[in-house]
């Protein structure tokens, strides 16, 4: 087994379903026999604020939180959230961005502008950045709420974990009646990330 610890930072807005994604990834890592640690923020920050889940796995993991400049991948459920956490990325790290815009209150009220060029700015800094329209893909698969599983597919391709392990984890977590849509969404995300 590799000694290296893989660090995945999953960021988004409270209510976007980042927790399901971190649960699936963590379950896959457990299935594969890795030591795993996951850190999340509960409580006040969940109310529409910025949220972050940190998943770490490897032969042995100590700290439950990722060091600055040490994340292999940032998976952002929302565009400006990707920008907010960029200082956690490794020099050769990768950013996957869901092409979703959730306006902070300051933008809704017209006090601040949403930086529309944020994706371009990140790509200029990090050419390996990928953007995906997970919401559109999920809608096409039959349920807009499966967007987070589309992102799991992208992530699976990026980290290089076996897709069948992820499908096994999804089957264990997602309710039976939503399983088919989720598996389709996962495979679409996987194909998009390949």
């Amino acid at each position, binding site marked *: 087994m590799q000694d290296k610890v893989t660090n995945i930072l999953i960021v988004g807005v409270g209510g976007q379903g980042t927790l399901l994604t971190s649960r699936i990834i963590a379950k896959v890592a457990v299935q594969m026999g890795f030591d795993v640690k996951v850190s999340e923020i509960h409580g006040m920050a969940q109310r529409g604020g910025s949220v972050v889940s940190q998943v770490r796995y490897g032969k042995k993991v100590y700290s439950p*939180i990722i060091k600055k400049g040490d994340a292999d991948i940032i998976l952002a459920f929302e565009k400006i959230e990707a920008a907010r956490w960029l200082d956690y990325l490794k020099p050769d790290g990768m950013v996957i961005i869901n092409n979703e815009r959730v*306006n902070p209150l300051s933008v809704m009220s017209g006090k601040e502008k949403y930086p529309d060029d944020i994706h371009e*700015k990140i790509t200029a*800094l990090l050419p390996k950045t990928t953007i995906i329209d997970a919401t559109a893909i999920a809608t096409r698969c039959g349920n807009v709420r499966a967007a987070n599983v589309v992102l799991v597919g992208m992530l699976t391709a990026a980290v290089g974990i076996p897709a069948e392990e992820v499908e096994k984890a999804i089957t264990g977590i997602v309710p039976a009646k939503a399983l088919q849509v989720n598996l389709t969404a996962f495979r679409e995300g996987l194909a998009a990330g390949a």
Partner: protein
Amino acid sequence: MKELMIGNAAIARGAYEAGATVATAYPGTPSTEIVSSFAEFPDVYAEWAPNEKVALEVGAGASIAGARTLVAMKHVGVNVAADPLYSFSYTGVNGGLVIVSADDPGLHSSQNEQDNRGYGRFAKMPVIEPSDSQEALDYTKLAFEISEQFDTMVMLRITMRLAHSQTMVETGAKQDVPMKEYKKNAAKYVMLPGFAKGRHVEVEKSLQQLQEYAETTPLNRIEMNDTGLGIITSGVPYQYVKEAFPHASILKLGLVNPLPQELIKSFAAQVDKLFVVEELEPVIEEQVKSWGIEVIGKDQLTLLGEYSTEYLQQQLGGQPMPPGFNLDKQVPARPPLLCAGCPHRGVFHVLRKMRLVVAGDIGCYTLGAIAPLEGMDTCICMGASIGTALGMEKARGPEFAAKTVAVIGDSTFVHSGITGLIDVVYNGGTSTVLILDNDTTAMTGHQDHPATGVTITKQPTNKLDIEALVKAIGVKNVRVVDPLKISELETALKEELARREPSVIICKRPCVLLPGTPKPNRKIYVDAEICNGCKSCIRVGCTGVTFQDEEKKAQINDGCIACGLCEQVCKFDAIKQTEV
């Protein structure tokens, strides 16, 4: 088989495996999941107590009666429970009692950063600190043994980072622990001065024994490595140390009160340079220094917030902070907000409009303090609002009271607001108190409480009638309003503030996130022909309405749940509805 578990669930599991049959708590981030997880085990009793003081008293009773008992609370909850804590530390236990204090370095969801290891020294009780979920489970089990062996409650001190991180746990079998026999023993359990004097002698004796135990317990261990650098640490910071300095020698303390003086001295003698790494207060460092041992701690490490691997590498290892990638511009901040349709928004909109002084309290509604609502002047601690408002009135007179309100949630009112209201009535205050009754403890994730009429296991129970209660206290002017009907609320406030008598306005409407809260049967929209871009609707600070910069008009977005607040605020009737 190993599984991932948050620290809080591991503590519950540890207590269950140790044969605990009673658990009690008042919810508070980051401690809430401990007793809610315990409640899911078979053949146990778990409860939400009205507050932490009652929780510990119930715990003390269960222990004296013979059961192994778990009591959990957030760090500031221990302050509420401090009175029974300091006496129960004298009586000691019958069945083992473990009290969990969930501290919050970094203030992720709290009003201060107090370090509750300090309680261990003051209340003369052992304090145990795990560093991951497996230790949380194992140490909880061991804590029950220690509690019974040394006849003392044991504090399990954790932090948010342990409480809410998932790490791998191997569970064990449930031990069969018979209930201890109950024997009347007034000299042990009745804290009259004469008896307490005798108990103090026993407490000092058991502390002495604990001191000896500390030297040999498996809770404390030395990981000898390179002797150039030695680090004494405990809790989650141990994990940061392991990662930051993989070659250092480490003395990992699982028992942080009392400290193993001889073990520390011998460790110090074996290493060239010695650090103490502990978040918040220099609890270990000061004691180690008092024994004449040279050690580096808070002179290089902050008293504030959480530590991290990179922070320790920078401060103690001289390694620069990784620069990381940074865009050349800041992105807009995204603070937590009241939800679209939240009943509290109506209240704070009216309070701001009326320019009232607002003595606030702790709950989701504390978010009413931030822009754009900015409708709160003070927030001290759970239940403080009513006393604070009375104090303002007594300092500045009834004219000031006529423009002052106290704002408190239903769960918080039951927790510790009732006695404040009694003070108002008793001492002739004229305060106007708003009880924001959303039928749940929302901020911590929708726990039930005495006024919801449902128990922790979702069983129907006797429902506390808040309206009848405040009348029984002696408040004559009590009315119930819908906080999203703003003219009704404004009228109620004007009338009650004008009275030279105490008043209570119960703002009653369930939390929008509560399962079972009815979905709206209509949609609203902005008629762009009428909207003149005045932004009145924007100023209610709701995520359901967006200002379109180019068109200079408001627009209802997908986040809206048609609560109707912006409709009432619009002076031009530009917000209209359609049935769905």
